[in-house]
């Protein structure tokens, strides 16, 4: 296996993007930041991969328009996933592993506010017996939250603790669109929304984009003194049906955790769009009490569709570049109620990358 590191990261998050859903005008400055961080031009990028969905954009071939932001003369080596940035990064990591390229820039974007996000996501469900009912994302998460409350696996106080810590940490993150911690008591005094969820238990609809730069071996060392080396990358999927799995558990997250080495992890950025989902993930990953969870404020305070998972990777990488931590794990999710889970372990040394 080749040593591959995250060497660049840029992000944008906002409640409502005043621009087209192709997001070209948001991507151009984002890519410029990546060039500035690496000292590269677009000609130094061996492979490109983007993540987006036409269902979010409300138009066809939105990812093709987005390619304008790269500039494609001479032609570029380019791919696309209809998944979060984290999966685009996975494809790029594999591409580098093949030896065909040494560098990659991946980006993802979405203007979730253009439609009704929680409804649009009904299109990722089973099309015969689920989608025709239009079970929205918030409802599916609410069914999961209550299953855990009824089973005594977590309670509303534990959910409010997650929300309060996230809102407090978000105050230090310029990109978080919801911030301001108070107290667990104050949060619990707020009204129910989708009982058993209060609004602060649900991530806000967020527009945004993000980009990650990967490089192998010496190309990474040329860019940064301490590249964030990828020592583990794993992705598993649970069945989609809400009735055929124990909603209080996440077997796919547990399997992903077993496939990587989480020992010594100091920070974990978990892509939990609903407060109780962080509790599920912490349990499945077996994280020790002293592991810092979501210092960015996490997806609960800002969750741009198609980039929020990859942003977790960028947030951990940034803390490794600055030597704040020497090892961390980033998580990304997709599908209803934590159906799909990806883990990416990052470290300041190449130990474990083979």
């Amino acid at each position: 296996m080749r040593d591959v590191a995250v060497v660049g990261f840029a992000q944008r998050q906002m409640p409502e993007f005043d621009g087209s859903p192709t997001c070209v005008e948001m991507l151009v400055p984002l890519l410029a930041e990546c060039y500035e961080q690496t000292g590269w031009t677009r000609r130094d990028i061996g492979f490109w991969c983007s993540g987006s969905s036409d269902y979010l954009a409300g138009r066809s071939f939105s990812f093709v328009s987005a390619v304008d932001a790269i500039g494609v003369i001479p032609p570029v080596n380019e791919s696309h996933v209809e998944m979060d940035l984290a999966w685009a990064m996975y494809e790029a990591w594999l591409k580098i592993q093949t030896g065909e390229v040494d560098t990659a820039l991946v980006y993802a974007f979405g203007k979730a506010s253009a439609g009704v996000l929680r409804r649009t996501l009904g299109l990722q469900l089973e099309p015969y017996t689920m989608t025709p009912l239009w079970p929205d994302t918030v409802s599916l998460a609410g069914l999961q939250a209550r299953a855990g409350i009824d089973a005594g696996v977590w309670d509303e106080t534990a959910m409010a603790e997650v929300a309060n810590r996230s809102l407090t940490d978000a105050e230090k993150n310029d990109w978080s669109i919801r911030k301001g911690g108070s107290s667990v008591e104050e949060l619990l005094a707020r009204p129910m929304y989708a009982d058993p969820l209060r609004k602060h238990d649900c991530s806000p609809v967020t527009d945004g984009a993000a980009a990650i730069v990967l490089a192998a071996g010496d190309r990474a060392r040329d860019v940064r003194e301490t590249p964030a080396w990828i020592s583990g990358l794993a992705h598993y999927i649970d069945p989609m049906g809400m009735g055929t799995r124990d909603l209080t558990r996440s077997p796919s997250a547990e399997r992903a955790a077993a496939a990587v080495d989480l020992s010594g992890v100091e920070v974990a950025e978990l892509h939990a769009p609903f407060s109780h989902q962080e509790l599920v993930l912490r349990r499945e990953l077996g994280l020790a009490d002293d592991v810092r969870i979501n210092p960015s404020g996490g997806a609960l305070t800002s969750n741009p569709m198609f980039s929020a998972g990859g942003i977790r990777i960028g947030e951990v990488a940034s803390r490794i570049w600055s030597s704040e931590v020497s090892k961390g794990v980033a998580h990304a999710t997709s599908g209803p109620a934590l159906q799909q889970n990806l883990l990416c372990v990052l470290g300041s040394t190449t130990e474990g990358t083979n």
Partner: protein
Amino acid sequence: MTRTLSAPVTVAFDYTRSTGPVVGRFLTGLRDGVVVGGRTSAGEVVVPPLEFDPVTHEPTTEFVEVGPGGTVTSWVWVPEPVKDQPFDRPFAFALVTLDGATRPFLHALDVSSPDEVSTGMRVRVRFAEERVGAITDIVFEPEIGEPAATTTLQTVDPVTGVIVPVSLDYLYAASPEESAFYRGLNEGRIVGQRCPTCQKVYVPPRSACPSDGTPTAEEVEVSQTGTITTFCIVNVPFLGQKITPPYVSAYVLLDGADIAVLHLILGVDAAEVRMGMRVKAVWKPEAEWTYSLENIDHFEPTGDPDADYDTYRHHL
């Protein structure tokens, strides 16, 4: 003035899907007035039945009638229903383990307040009067009072397909550069953007130059006269066609632009249209102008001599 122009857009498509023997069996049951689960190799009864056994991966072949009564295992309040959900006023989604099943089944529960729902409560399936063999033929209701009489049927032809209409509403915004283009059209002007790196002028404008990725900073008004670079004569009718065939669709390279726009050519016999022909924009009456390329009704020949091939050979 906002930075961008936007307009509501609805994207809709009716997905026609074949069901196969397992989902078809389940939906046939709903049409006939019974709920059918599938038995797995581990002895579980799952509703809707799984197409394949999760352990042996063999197709599900054993079906069991379940319900209509059942027990709520989880529920959520839906305070603000979204379009096409089973109810257009607040309701609950519930996971219900139907009598005879071992796994819960997701559907809507007809209650008017969260106070009327609790985990463990008894509910039953309520069948719609008119049923087509779709998941929307039923909802759950609290097990209170006598159930409404359900007409059970013994239909012969199984359900083999469903049509799932999908309709998504958006507020679609044009980019700032496209917005300038549409604002220009509303004033009878054609506005493009110039790439500061390669000097190419894009009409309609792009936010970044697709050749080199540079943001296109400079707004440029281009001529209303141009050259046909290529064209086709449309003889075939198609869904959504606005003009009766035959007609000519052509790429018109406006003077001062580097990208051709697609438009209609009139005022000339289709057989006369040719590459290099000089044409000019014919606008609709000003009273009809809006933020649209359709303000230009069509292009027609100027009568000038054809453009030299070299003037457009790089724009084909």
